[in-house]
Structures are given as C-alpha cells and as structure tokens.
C-alpha cells in the first residue's frame, strides 16, 4: 500500500488533519478535532501510530489530547501536568517531543514534563526549573513558554530545550540538571547584549543529518552551532529581518535551512510579499523563494511551530499562517502552492508519513 501523508495543523480553534499520498499534489481535509480547543502543537509518533495535540482551553485548562486511531477518536489528560501545591498553575501546553519511547511536553509557565504512557499521565522534570537562573526568567510577548524540545538523536540522556525568553538549556543526565547554551546569542533588549541567559529564542532545531549541529531563530537574529550549542555563530546576514518565528532544518542535509523572516513590528512578511528564505551552505548565503507565493498586499505572519518539512526526496516544505492559509512546496522551496484557506489562525504544522 502506498504511503499516506498527514498534515497535522494546530490552530486557535481546534486541530485539523489534511491527507494526501506520496505525491502530495492534492489534499483532502477532515472535520476539526479536539473540540475547538486552542492547539499549540499537533504532532505524531509514527512508530506507535499515535497522534498528540497539546494546548489549553480558557475554560478547562491545559491538556494533551491523544488518538490511537489516526484521529478518529480522542482522549485528553492533564494528570500530573502541574507544579504541585504552591507552584504556579500551568496555563497551556506549548510543545510536544519524543525521546527514548517517552513523550515530553513543554508548558507555560516554562517547564518540562514527561509521560511514559503515551500522554495518559505526566511527571514534572524538576531539574529544569531548579536551574539557578529560573527566578529571573522573563516572558516574551507570547508568554514564558517552553516551545522547543530537541532530543539528542542517539543519547537519550541528552536534550536541549528553548524557552522564550530565558534561552536555550541542555541536559546530559536525563533532565536532572541543566546548563545554559546561549554563548554568542544577542539579547538587544537587555543591558548586557550577550548574557548567559535571558535570550528570546523563538525556535531551536537540530540537524538530523549531523549530530552536534543546531540552529535557532531568535528574536535577535538567526544562529548556527557546530558544538551542540556550546557556542553560536550568527548567520543573519543576507536576510531582510533579524526577526522571525519558524525554522526548518532539512531532514537529510545539515547545511540546508529554511526561515521565514518577519517585520519586527508587524510580525508579518516584509513589504507584503510572501517569501521563504533558504540557505544551502549553513547560513553563509540565503536565497529568497517566492514562486507561487502572493507578492502583493500579503501581510502574512507565521508562528514558531507553524512550519515543517517531510522526509521525501526532494523534501516537502509546509507553512501555515495566522490568517488560516496553508502553503506547500514539493521541491524544497523552489515553487509553492496554496493547499488550504479559511482555517482558524494556525499555530502549528507537522507532517506524518504513514507507510502502508
């Protein structure tokens, strides 16, 4: 049986699943799921076949929704998803990640939780909030959120997380202790421009093809690390803006990265011209990819988790906008097509390839 390709879209009002085949030329959309909850991150574990949607309802609080039948039926749980008596209330689930058979959730106010039973129950990874800097963590415009969970590809004890606006943190002991990983990253809104922590990192990604290489889209620029985050090199030159949210690292080429620069004030693509920018040389130079994207009066914004790639060759690239449009490229950004419109504001986009 041919592969089934699912595009998992988290929005301000529920989650949506679009479906195609390996050709990815035509997409069908199902009815929304997760009861119109705001879903910050909708993802899949292709090994188990489970779908996971993390978010938070203004009425009913934070939870992770899970489905074992590719989205036909859903359950939600927040058992253990709290900081205990006296701790702050968890407002929402911002991000989901998988490592070593476990499911991780990043939340607001920033913290990390882990589940060993596919999201039915959760345990706080206390070491992160015990970092000595935690009392000084300040929120970004979107809240104090743990938005990026980046597991090491081969060492289950290692993980990086990114918090806006506390910076990037790393563990080598399964989360018991953490260290900062922000050297070389600007924080223009601080009196000290290169502080140890407090950077407003917007998106942290690892290069699947090269362990030790990381990239980040920050409020103040784009960066690459070749030493697992110990130091960062700025690679913003050539981009129209320091500011942006999403970032995609090519699944098979550690030197190829996609970003979507945004106007710092409007938080939409500059000059009303939609564009995705691509580097093929780890950030030394950037290309502006616009074919098939609207070039007039297109003040489109894309949030941090609303862009992704699939694992086909050439890789498909996808992004969703705050005004409910979905765009896709089947040729690594050379050309684009709009595949959906009129969705609620899009908060996240992920791809799951289900082999037949």
């Amino acid at each position: 049986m041919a592969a089934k390709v699912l595009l998992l879209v988290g929005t301000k009002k529920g989650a949506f699943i679009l479906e195609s085949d390996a050709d990815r030329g035509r997409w069908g959309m199902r009815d929304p799921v997760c009861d119109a909850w705001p879903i910050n991150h909708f993802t899949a574990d292709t090994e188990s076949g489970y779908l996971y949607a993390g978010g938070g309802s203004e009425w009913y609080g934070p939870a992770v929704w899970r489905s074992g039948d590719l989205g036909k039926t859903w359950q939600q749980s927040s058992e253990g998803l709290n900081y205990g008596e006296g701790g702050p209330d968890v407002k929402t689930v911002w991000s989901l990640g998988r490592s070593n058979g476990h499911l991780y959730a990043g939340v607001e106010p920033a913290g990390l939780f882990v589940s060993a039973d596919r999201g039915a129950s959760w345990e706080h990874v206390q070491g992160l909030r015990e970092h000595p800097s935690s009392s000084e963590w300040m929120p970004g415009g979107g809240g104090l959120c743990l938005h990026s969970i980046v597991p090491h590809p081969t060492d289950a004890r290692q993980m990086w997380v990114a918090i806006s606006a506390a910076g990037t943190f790393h563990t080598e002991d399964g989360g018991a202790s953490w260290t900062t990983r922000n050297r070389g990253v600007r924080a223009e809104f601080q009196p000290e421009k290169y502080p140890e922590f407090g950077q407003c990192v917007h998106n942290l990604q690892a290069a699947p093809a090269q362990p030790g290489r990381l990239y980040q889209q920050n409020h103040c620029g784009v960066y690459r690390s070749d030493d697992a985050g110990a130091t960062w090199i700025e690679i913003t030159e050539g981009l129209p803006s320091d500011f942006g949210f999403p970032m995609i690292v090519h699944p098979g080429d550690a030197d190829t990265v996609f970003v979507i620069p945004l106007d710092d004030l409007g938080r939409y693509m500059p000059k009303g011209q939609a564009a995705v920018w691509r580097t093929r040389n780890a950030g030394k130079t950037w290309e502006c990819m616009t074919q098939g994207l609207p070039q007039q009066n297109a003040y489109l914004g894309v949030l941090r988790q609303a862009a992704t790639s699939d694992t086909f060759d050439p890789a498909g690239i996808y992004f969703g906008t705050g005004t409910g449009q979905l765009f896709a490229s089947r040729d690594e950004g050379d050309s684009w097509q709009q595949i959906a419109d009129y969705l609620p504001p899009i908060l996240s986009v992920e791809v799951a390839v289900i082999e037949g």
Partner: protein
Amino acid sequence: MVEVYLPDSLARLFPGRPRRATLPAGCVAELMWQLDATWPGMRDRLCLSNGAIRRHINVFVDGDRATHEAELRPGAVVQIIPAISGG
C-alpha cells in the same frame, strides 16, 4: 446528596458524555473530588492546582454563584457553567 448539572462542552470530554449526576458532597470542593472519582480527570478541568475553581468556570449553588469553599445542603442543585469571559 446533591444534584449537579454539567455543561456539554465538559461532558463531551468524558466517556458517556455525562450531563447530570447525583453525588454525595458537603461542599463544592468535595463535589469536585466526587466528580473526579466518577470521571477521572474532571477535577483538573474545573479546578486549579490549589483547588480554586478555574477563572472562567462558574459554579452556581441553588442559583447563587459560589466558590470552592461553599457549603452544600442536602438536595442542593449545583450548576457548572462556562463563563462568557472564557471566549
């Protein structure tokens, strides 16, 4: 025993989509635990970690808005209603 009415938006999150229940409780806080015992996870949907009712959830006891500390007389009617302030 008190009678509690649940909103549809909460009911459909749980098996059986319960809209109404009769449970033993002497106060609203105890009622939340009884709801949780009957439908695991329901207390988390209604209460913060300190036991207070979530900001955009209203609990009415015999027609009067109540907190988690409110006492419940035998036969009280409790209505749980999402507040319009939640969106």
